[in-house]
C-alpha cells in the first residue's frame, strides 16, 4: 500500500516543489504549449485551415468536410496545455484528485493536434486514418491479450512473437494447400480451417513453453527466447521446403460488413466493415475481461499469478492452472499471427510478424495488465504507426526518417509520462515448486 501513497499523496502533506512525475509531465506540456504558440503564430496566418474530410472509401456518401482554422485550434490547445500544466505543477489541494484526469485529457487532445497541425493548409481523410489505426492495432491487441492470460497466471511470455509466427506460417500453409482442394464456393470452409490451424500452431508452441517453464521450471525468459528463435528457424525451413516451389498468394479473409451498422456516419466504416479476425479481437477482449474479473477461473488465475503459495494452500493446483492459461494464451497468439498472413497480406514471408509480439507486450504493460487497458495501448501504437504514413501522405516537410520516429517518440512520452507506475502480477516470472 505504500506505493499508492507515493503516487497519490492524499494522506501525506504535499511537498511543494518535489519534482514528481506529474510535474515533469506538466513542464513538458508547458514547453509544447509555448512551442506551439511561438511557432504557430510566426509561421501560420489566421486564414490557414486544416480540412478534415470524411469520405468513406467505396461509398458515395461523402459527408461535408470539417474545416478547422489551424492557428485558432493551435492557440486554444496551447492555452489548455498551459492551464493544465500550471494546475499540475502547483497542485492545489482542492483539485489534486482531478489532476491525473486533466493530464490524461491533455494527452488525448494532443493526439489529434499532431494531425491537425501537420496537415495545416491541406486536407486529410480522418475516416481512413481511424480505420487504419484500428487495423494496425489488431495484432497488437490480440497479442497483448495472449500475454495477459499467461502473465496473469504468473508465467512471463516473451514468446508471443514466436507463437504468432507459427500461427502465421501454418495458417497460411493450410489455406495455401487447401484452396485447390475445396471448390471456390466453399473456400470459406478452407479459410475457417486455416484459422483453426493457426490457433492450434500457437497452442502447440505454448505447450512447449509451459512444459519448459512450468514442468521443468526453466527460466521463463530463456524458454520464451528459445521459442522465438525456434519459430524463425522452423517457419523459414518450412517455407523454403514446401512453399517456395509453389509460390504465390491466397485469397485473403473476406470483409464482412455488418448491415445497417456499417452505414453509421464516420465510425461505421472503421468499426463495422472489417474482416473476421478484426471482429474476433473485440470478442476476445470482452470475454477476457469477464473471465478474468468475474469468474472463478479468473479469480484462481489471478491468485496463482499473485500469491501461488496461498492459492496452493487453498487447494488450487497452481501448475495445472498455469498450464491451462499458457495454452489459452498461445492459442490467442496463434490467431494474432493469422492476422498477418490470412487477413492482411495473403502471403507468408520469413519473420513477417516483425516484432509485433514485443510491441504487444509493451501494450500490455501500458494497459497495466488489464484487457481494456491493453487495447488502449494497442490503439496508441496502431495510431502512431498510421500517423507515420499519414505524415508522408500529407507531405509534411520533414525528413522521412524523422517521421518514422514519431510513433516511438509518442510511445516514450506516453509510457513515461502518462501511465506512470505499472505493477506486474507479483509472482510473474517465478516457477512454482511445492515445498
Amino acid at each position, binding site marked *: 500500500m505504500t506505493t499508492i501513497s507515493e503516487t497519490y499523496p492524499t494522506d501525506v502533506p504535499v511537498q511543494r516543489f518535489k519534482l514528481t512525475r506529474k510535474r515533469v509531465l506538466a513542464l513538458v506540456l508547458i514547453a509544447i504549449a509555448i512551442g506551439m504558440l511561438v511557432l504557430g503564430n510566426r509561421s501560420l496566418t489566421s486564414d490557414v485551415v486544416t480540412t478534415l474530410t470524411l*469520405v468513406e*472509401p*467505396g461509398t458515395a456518401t461523402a459527408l461535408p468536410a470539417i474545416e478547422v482554422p489551424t492557428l485558432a485550434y493551435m492557440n486554444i490547445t496551447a492555452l489548455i496545455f498551459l492551464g493544465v500544466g500550471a494546475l499540475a505543477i502547483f497542485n492545489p489541494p482542492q483539485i489534486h484528485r482531478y489532476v491525473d484526469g486533466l493530464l490524461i485529457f491533455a494527452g488525448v487532445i494532443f493526439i489529434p493536434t499532431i494531425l491537425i497541425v501537420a496537415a495545416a493548409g491541406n486536407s*486529410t*481523410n480522418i*475516416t*481512413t*486514418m481511424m*480505420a*487504419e489505426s484500428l*487495423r*494496425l492495432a489488431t495484432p497488437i491487441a490480440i497479442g497483448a491479450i495472449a500475454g495477459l492470460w499467461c502473465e496473469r497466471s504468473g508465467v512471463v511470455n516473451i514468446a508471443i512473437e514466436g507463437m504468432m509466427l507459427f500461427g502465421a506460417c501454418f495458417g497460411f500453409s493450410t489455406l495455401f494447400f487447401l484452396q485447390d482442394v475445396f471448390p471456390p464456393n466453399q473456400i470459406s470452409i478452407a479459410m475457417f480451417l486455416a484459422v483453426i490451424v493457426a490457433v492450434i500452431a500457437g497452442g502447440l508452441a505454448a505447450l512447449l513453453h509451459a512444459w519448459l517453464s512450468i514442468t521443468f521450471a526453466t527460466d521463463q525468459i530463456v524458454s520464451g527466447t528459445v521459442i522465438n528463435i525456434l519459430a*524463425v528457424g522452423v517457419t*523459414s525451413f518450412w*517455407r*523454403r521446403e514446401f*512453399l*517456395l516451389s509453389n*509460390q*504465390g*498468394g*491466397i*485469397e*485473403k479473409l473476406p470483409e464482412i460488413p455488418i448491415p445497417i451498422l456499417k452505414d453509421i456516419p464516420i465510425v461505421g466504416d472503421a468499426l463495422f466493415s472489417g474482416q473476421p479476425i478484426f471482429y474476433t479481437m473485440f470478442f476476445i477482449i470482452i470475454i477476457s475481461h469477464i473471465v478474468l474479473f468475474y469468474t472463478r477461473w479468473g479469480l484462481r488465475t489471478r491468485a496463482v499469478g499473485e500469491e501461488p503459495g496461498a492459492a496452493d494452500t487453498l487447494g488450487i493446483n497452481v501448475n495445472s492452472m498455469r498450464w491451462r492459461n499458457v495454452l489459452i494464451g498461445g492459442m490467442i497468439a496463434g490467431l494474432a499471427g493469422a492476422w*498477418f498472413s490470412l487477413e*492482411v*497480406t*495473403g*502471403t507468408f*514471408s*520469413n*519473420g*513477417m510478424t*516483425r516484432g509485433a509480439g514485443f510491441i504487444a507486450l509493451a501494450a500490455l504493460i501500458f494497459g497495466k495488465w488489464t484487457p481494456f487497458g491493453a487495447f488502449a495501448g494497442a490503439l496508441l501504437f496502431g495510431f502512431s*504507426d*498510421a500517423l507515420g*504514413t*499519414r505524415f*508522408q*501522405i500529407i507531405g509534411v516537410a520533414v525528413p*522521412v*526518417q524523422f517521421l*518514422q520516429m514519431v510513433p516511438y517518440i509518442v510511445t516514450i512520452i506516453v509510457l513515461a509520462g502518462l501511465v506512470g507506475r505499472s505493477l506486474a502480477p507479483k509472482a510473474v516470472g517465478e516457477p512454482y515448486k511445492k515445498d
Partner: protein
Amino acid sequence: MKNVRKLVLASFMLALIFSIAPVVLAQDGIETVCLVTDIGQIDDGTFNQFAHEGAIAVTEDYDLDYTFIETQAEADYETNINTCVEEGFDVILTIGFMIADATWDAAVANPDVFFVGVDQFVGDQTDEDGNVTEEAPENYVGIQFREDQAGFLAGALAALMTENDIVAGVYGVEIPPVKKFRNGFENGAQYINPDITLLGVYIDDFVAPDRGASAAEQFIGEGADVIFGAGGQTGSGGITAAAQQDVYVIGVDQDEYLSTFRDGETPGAEYIISSAMKRVDQGVYDMVAALAEGDMDGFPGGGVYVMDATLGGVGLAEPHDADVPEEILAQLEDIFNMMAEGELDSGVDPITGDMLEAE
C-alpha cells in the same frame, strides 16, 4: 635516397601487379556461382527472385553449380558473403544496394573471386578534389538500372489510366534505386498531366506487406485510383491489398502479374495494369555468361554495367487481364522509344535518384 629508390621500386611492383591482375583473372574458368540475397527472399516476387531466376538460367546454360543464401538481417551480409568465399565459389552475386559495402570489402579481400552486385555502384572512390583515394577492385562489377526510366513509363501509364487525377506510390526504404523509381514515376505522371495529384510514402522496411497494405488503404481513402508499389514485399503487399479493392495497380522489378498475382490466380489480378520492370535476370545472366565464356571485355571490372531503355534493360510489362486501351499502349511505346533514343529524359539523376533541376 635509398628510401626514394625503395619507393619507386615498390610502386613499379604495384603497377606490375595491377597490370597483370586482369590477365590472371581472365585465365580462371568459372564453375560455381553463389547468390546472396538482400534482406528478402528468393520468392519475394521482386528483385531477389528475378536475380535468382537469371542465375538459374545462366548456370543451366553454361552447366555451372549454383546455390543461394537468403539474408535475414543486415548484420548477416558480411557473414553470408564470407560463407560463399570460404566454400570456394568462383562467382558471388550479391543482390541489392544495401549489401554494396560488404561486397566491396569482400572483393578487395578476395581478388581471385568475381563479384557481381545488383543495384550497386562500383567506381574509384574519390575525395572532394576528385583525387582517387581507393581504386575499385577489378574483380567487381556493379549492375545498375535506369529505374527512373521504368518509373517514368509507369507514371505515364498511371496518369493515363486515372479518373480522379490522383495517383499514389507505396515505396520501400529510401535508397537510390527506390528513389529513382519514385521520382521517375512522379515525373512521368506529370509529363502526361502537370496538374496531377501525387501521393507517396517511403516505408523503412522491404518486408512489411501489412504496412504496405495499410498505406495503400490510406491512399484509397484519399481518392487515389492507381497505385504503384515499389518496395519489395512492402510494395507487393500494397498492390495486392489495393487490387482486391478494385483499384488499378502497377508492380515493380519483374512482371508481378506472374509472381505476386500467381499468373492471374490471386484475386484482383485483373487490376494489375503493368509492372515497371528492371531486367535483373538479364543483367545477372549477361555478367555470369561473360565470365563463363572468359570474355573479359563483357565484364567491366571495377565499373558498372548500366541496363537502360536502350539496352532493353528496363520497360513495362504487358497488361495481361487488365483492360488498358490500345491507344494508351501505343502512347507508352512512343515514350519508351523516345527514351531509348535519348530524346526524352526522365529528369532524375541516374546515380543518386534525386530530381534534376528543371531547365
